[in-house]
């Protein structure tokens, strides 16, 4: 049995995708072994900020041998009339290095064939790893890579060493300008001297002596244990998330912990500010309610005093700044900041931030009829919501992400708690999957602000192109859709867009909002996809959409549920027949009842009329399951009509009237969705 160690050593890897990359590498090697029939006893994924790799114990020296069957010529031509092998069979045997004894006859569905069976000896594990491992490394994918030397291999950070040790032998392949060998590197706080490895089994312990805990799971356990020990004697709970621990794990080779304290006066800061400062400083962990923090560091224990002093100093300097801004801002007050927004341009040629606030204040009137919405709160919040952009706190780049939240704190001084809450929440959701505002006022304000941002981007020439979205309005548009649906706001998007455009003034009255409709249709489509609807269902619904988001979701839902049933195909094909015949027709007239001759067309028309009425009621009630039933019932008459009646007849009058009838029926379907967008499995795509 032999062992294998692979370690790629690099300068500090971006923590955000270290774990995934290391897992990809180790999965790649495991799959190789499985694929090549090399069994192993255990496998361990390794990563630290400066290395990733895999340690495999207990492999055979050789790949397992394999018995293969090779099919040769049909029996008929393989042997001559005397039963002797023909030239053809001999050729087959020679090509596959087969002996007479290895031949046999196999019955297949196509008849009898001469076949060969032989055992292929396993290839050396060493040879396989030597050729395949570099390929696996080269096939890794990363979100961002770089170049650092003349080599053609790209990696997220410069690769500086590679260990590839198979038992006692290094596999000297080359990657990224580095020749693989048996030398690893220690934690540089411990030494710069390479660590020579005789065999893979020494790796974990030798590296530990070099100040590196190579196994991420072990490291994580140590981190959590140390945090627990450090906080055991404290009154508060350490406040951390799994993500924070993961990130700490990805920037730490050798976890040590130290506790620090900051001056009590900083507890007067908003918690969000405190947490932002601590998190930005290498994920320091706050002990909630106290002036203490826990710092996980990655050096020798001897460094503890310097680390404590250093981090405390940096934290205090940042908190000093923050408190300075906070106090100044409170002294100044949000109303004064609002005054200052009159001098702050928003977007090019689109007025000041103050103009924007006033516009939002007017715009939210559109939501007046929503139930349980406190309009006074909303109006006040709308006017004040951008004022904190002029605060010293938000203008500081460390705290810009707290815009809104900071405004909420400042609003409490002179407005109600509800106003403060709406301001605090109005940026949410900041990203897909972020929490939505909890109050209806916050949600409306968020929608209003974001629709205005979208409009602003288009009016100021910052519309998104395929890869470029300078003002991030795709995210804004998505959030608008998400909020309208989540809160079931009855507002129509196109109406809202028209209103906000009006509020931008005379100057833009001729702006064509068609591009914005398209923009929103794309956002709705993306949103519905994320909700689990299929693209053809979404296309069917959005083909004829009146810009009501919630309704679009409901129609998709009805379609999706109906899709599981056997009648679904019938229904779709029903409309497709109708659609197909109308494809090249440009103009249609009204149906003239007197011109209906055949029983099938008379029947179709009568049923259509009946359905129109009932459909109207059901559409009104949004009973979309009923709508689907009604439309399905039409199928029978449609089929009968197409079977019995020739639409494209020679009599022009009759023909036009029949086309009008088909058009009328088509409209029934189109009122709900455009079924012809639905892709039925097995159907040829047009």
């Amino acid at each position, binding site marked *: 049995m032999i062992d294998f160690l692979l370690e790629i050593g690099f300068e500090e890897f971006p923590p955000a995708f270290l774990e995934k990359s290391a897992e990809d590498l180790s999965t790649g090697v495991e799959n190789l072994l499985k694929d090549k029939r090399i069994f192993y006893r255990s496998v361990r994924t390794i990563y630290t900020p400066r290395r990733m790799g895999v340690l495999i114990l207990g492999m055979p020296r050789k790949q397992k041998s394999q018995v293969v069957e090779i099919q040769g010529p049909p029996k008929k031509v393989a042997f001559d009339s005397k039963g002797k092998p023909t030239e053809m069979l001999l050729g087959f045997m020679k090509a596959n290095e087969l002996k007479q004894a290895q031949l046999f006859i196999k019955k297949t569905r196509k008849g009898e064939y001469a076949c060969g069976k032989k055992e292929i000896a396993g290839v050396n594990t060493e040879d396989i790893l030597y050729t395949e491992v570099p390929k696996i490394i080269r096939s890794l994918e990363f979100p961002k890579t770089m170049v650092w*030397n003349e080599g053609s291999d790209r990696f997220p950070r410069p690769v500086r060493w590679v260990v590839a040790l198979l038992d006692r032998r290094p596999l000297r392949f080359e990657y990224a300008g580095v020749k693989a060998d048996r030398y690893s590197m220690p934690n*540089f706080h411990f030494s710069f001297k390479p660590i020579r490895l005789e065999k893979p089994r020494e790796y974990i312990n030798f590296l530990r002596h070099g100040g590196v805990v190579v196994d991420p799971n072990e490291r994580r356990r140590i981190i959590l244990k140390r945090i627990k020990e450090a906080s055991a004697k404290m009154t508060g709970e350490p406040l951390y998330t799994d993500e924070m621990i993961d990130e700490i794990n990805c920037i730490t080779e050798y976890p040590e912990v130290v506790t620090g304290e900051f001056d009590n006066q900083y507890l007067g800061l908003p918690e969000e500010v405190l947490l932002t400062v601590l998190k930005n400083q290498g994920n320091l962990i706050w002990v909630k309610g106290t002036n203490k923090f826990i710092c996980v560091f990655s*050096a020798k224990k001897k*460094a503890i005093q310097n680390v404590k002093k250093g981090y405390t100093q940096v934290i205090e*300097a940042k908190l000093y700044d923050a408190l300075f801004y906070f106090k100044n801002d409170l002294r100044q007050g949000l109303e004064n900041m609002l005054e200052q927004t009159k001098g702050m341009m928003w977007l090019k040629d689109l007025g000041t931030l103050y103009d924007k606030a006033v516009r939002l204040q007017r715009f939210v009137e559109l939501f007046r009829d929503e139930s349980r919405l406190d309009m006074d709160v909303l109006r006040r919040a709308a006017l004040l919501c951008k004022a904190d952009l002029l605060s010293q706190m938000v203008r500081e780049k460390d705290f810009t992400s707290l815009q809104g939240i900071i405004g909420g704190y400042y609003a409490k001084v002179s407005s109600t708690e509800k106003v403060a809450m709406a301001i605090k929440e109005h940026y949410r959701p900041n990203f897909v999957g972020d929490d939505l505002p909890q109050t209806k006022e916050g949600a409306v304000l968020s929608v209003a602000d974001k629709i205005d941002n979208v409009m602003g981007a288009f009016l100021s020439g910052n519309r998104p192109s395929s890869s470029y979205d300078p003002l991030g309005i795709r995210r804004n548009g998505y959030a608008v859709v998400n909020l309208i649906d989540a809160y079931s706001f009855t507002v129509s998007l196109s109406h809202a867009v028209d209103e906000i455009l009006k509020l931008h003034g005379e100057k833009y009255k001729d702006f064509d909002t068609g591009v914005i409709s398209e923009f929103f249709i794309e956002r709705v489509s993306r949103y519905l996809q994320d909700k689990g609807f299929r693209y053809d269902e979404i296309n069917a619904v959005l083909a004829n959409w009146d810009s009501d988001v919630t309704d679009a979701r409901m129609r998709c839902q009805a379609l999706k549920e109906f899709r599981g049933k056997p009648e679904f195909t019938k229904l779709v094909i029903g409309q497709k027949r109708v659609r197909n015949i109308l494809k090249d027709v440009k103009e249609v007239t009204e149906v003239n009842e007197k011109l209906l001759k055949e029983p099938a067309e008379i029947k179709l028309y009568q049923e259509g009329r009946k359905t129109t009425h009932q459909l109207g009621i059901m559409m009104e009630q949004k009973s979309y399951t009923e709508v689907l039933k009604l439309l399905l019932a039409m199928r029978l008459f449609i089929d009968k009509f197409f079977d019995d009646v020739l639409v494209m007849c020679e009599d022009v009058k009759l023909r036009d009237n029949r086309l009008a009838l088909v058009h009328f029926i088509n409209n029934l379907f189109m009122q709900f969705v455009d079924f012809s967008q639905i892709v039925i499995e097995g159907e040829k795509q047009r």
Partner: protein
Amino acid sequence: MRRVHTFENIILELKQYWQQQDCLLFEPYNSEVGAGTFNPATFIRILDTKPWNVCYVEISKRPRDGRYAKNPHRVQQFYQLQVIMKPAPDDIQKIYLQSLEHLGLKLKEHEVKFVKGDWDAPTLGAWGLGWEVWLDGMEITQFTYFQQAGGIDLPVIPVEITYGLERIAMALQDVSSIFDLKWNNDLSWGDVYEQNELEFSKYNFEEADPGFLTSLFNEFEAEAQKLYDRGLVLPGYDYTIKCSHLFNVIEARGVISISERAQMIGRVRALANRAARLYLEQNAAQQKKDSEKT
């Protein structure tokens, strides 16, 4: 007795160290810059394929960061020690870490952390991948492998190491305010620069005339374009640097919006990109001439 690391000694020792690494010892640029990267010894020299190793001190002016000498960690003007090595040596990280040891910082007694900090200078159309180097939590260096400058993919990757000299000195001297740093044995950093901080903070935040500065910006921009039109890369780039500084002052004054800001950055970037393209064009033309001669 432990040697006192005066500010000036730290500079001397670092320069010595990099001289031993075969870096040419250069001097600061003669007009206001936000970072050593603006110095043509970096921005222009990294564009071509010729080896270039250089070390110099740069005065970094960041008008926005002034705090009227009130904040112990923030000032609107400080010193950087800039190192460029092109191509980047394979063991550059070790060379850098040993420069800290050369200053007397024992790695066994501190934590040095390379914290991901992808760097980009939007006004220079330059970006790179690398880290902020933290000494016990304090950022003391930017360590970057340039990938692009002036909007051009670099043919040979240089490493840029930018030490924040005051930060390192604070750690070495164990003081918690920049103003308390010993410059030499008699004078502190504050003795040398406090008045300067006060006056420039007042200028940057209160007295700078945005209208005047904007008109200068426009004229300097036109001048740079004119010089480029005439094939004068370095004078054109000189005016580009001036535009960049004017922009920094206008921004500090707090009178431009986010979109105006983005626009001005775009204008400076266009100038810098033009310098880079022109430099490379002229280089290529020269090479062609040289090869025709031989």
